[in-house]
């Protein structure tokens, strides 16, 4: 899948709640309409990013995908700052 993004947050190896907390900090440094690509190895992040995007007023979840890297699954989330 090719989703255009403006910045990457590498949250691999970080346990919950860190992927969301760091994504929230990063998104607040972006310009509106810019997209953050988040990499996480925490499987729980898939549902959590969906829930967070529904809750947060300035965030839209554009896409999610799962990649395999050296036999380990990496969960990728594309998050747009809306306003």
């Amino acid at each position, binding site marked *: 899948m090719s989703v255009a993004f403006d910045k990457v947050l590498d949250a691999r190896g970080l346990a*919950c709640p860190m992927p969301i907390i760091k994504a*929230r900090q990063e998104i607040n440094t972006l310009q509106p309409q810019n997209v953050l690509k988040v990499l996480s190895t925490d499987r*729980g992040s898939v*549902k959590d990013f969906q*829930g*967070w995007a529904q*809750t947060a007023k300035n965030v839209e979840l554009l896409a999610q995908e799962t990649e395999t890297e050296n036999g380990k699954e990496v969960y990728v989330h594309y998050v747009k700052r809306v306003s």
Partner: protein
Amino acid sequence: MTKPEAQGTEWTVREQKEHLDRRANFFILDVRNRDEFAAWKIEGRETPSTLNIPYFEMLEQGGKDGFVESIIAYTQGELVGQLPKDRPILTVCAKGDTSAYVADGLRQLGYHALNLQGGMRAWGNFYEMNPVTESRELSVYQIGRPARGCLSYIIVSDGQAALIDPLRHIETYLDLARAKGFQIERVIDTHGHADHISGGPALAGRLDRPYYLHPYDGIHPIDVLPARVPFEYLHDGQTLSVGKARIQALHVPGHTLGNVACLLNEAYLFTGDSIFINSIARPDLGGRGETWAGLHYHSLRRLLELPDTTVVLPGHFSSPREANVDGLFIASLGELREKNEGLRIAQEGEDAFVQYILQSLPDFPPPYVEIKRVNGGLLVVDEEKASELELGKNVCALAQAYQAAAP
């Protein structure tokens, strides 16, 4: 962000279980996302009052930069009056990290908050052992995973043991064998499990002892591929002995094509997934529910021919409320003949039974196809993946069992 202090501010899953068992007065704040909470939550014979607020809602609606500061702001703004001050509040999440911050925030506001160490993952992997009977001639132990509703058994006679349906964490059984001084001689799986990863092949391999399975369950029903794990063929009527105990295999297909019940000394019936306490097994996890429902009927009728005094020891439970006062999941066949809805309907004839079964099937859990692959040695997974596949409570019984279990 530094992690909150652990000392005196956490419960282990064992401590939590003790509090549940003695119906202690505490409150649960579960901060997982709403889907995970809806699928699986902490239950006891009496389940404490429980509130689910996903941590990211606290973070976002609390609106502060720091997580703990957001939790404090959210609690002061939104949760006033919803959290008790007069009893402990157990905070729960998937793995126990996030809920530690939540407990920290609540304590700063004066609540008696404790974090569940290791979260739902640790709870899912927690084991409990209860003796069914204990003597030199014959001991039977029921070993279960309370959060998942999976049950396994050890039969010991004259220092020799047979394991029935051992669960994934095989150290549990090896530790018990050392502590009680018995030798594990035989390992039996009543069937190819779909809801959990069997400890059978690993234990048999470690101890160099035979692993028994009915050959029909040596074939993955969806993939139609043969197992790559070595096993001895278990067949109907076969008798295995350990010490003075004799275990007779009864082939009772239905839940799987190779499901076997084990009758010990003509007194104890290890039903595998056929008869449970409050329900019966579903026949559709192999993808052939309509075809297998009739087999299931004839198998249950066969088991119902055993004497009323036969002690039933099931492979699963659906609710902690099915336990007796000693915490055992156990009942006489005579009692179940009257009380168990599935068995009552089996006594009404095949048509009524098949109709009842096909109207009572819960959704098919997608990981179950993969778990069967793991159990047949067709797929190898690491600890992380194994825990993910096994997440939640088993769904091997009919739907009514879970409706009845809902708080």
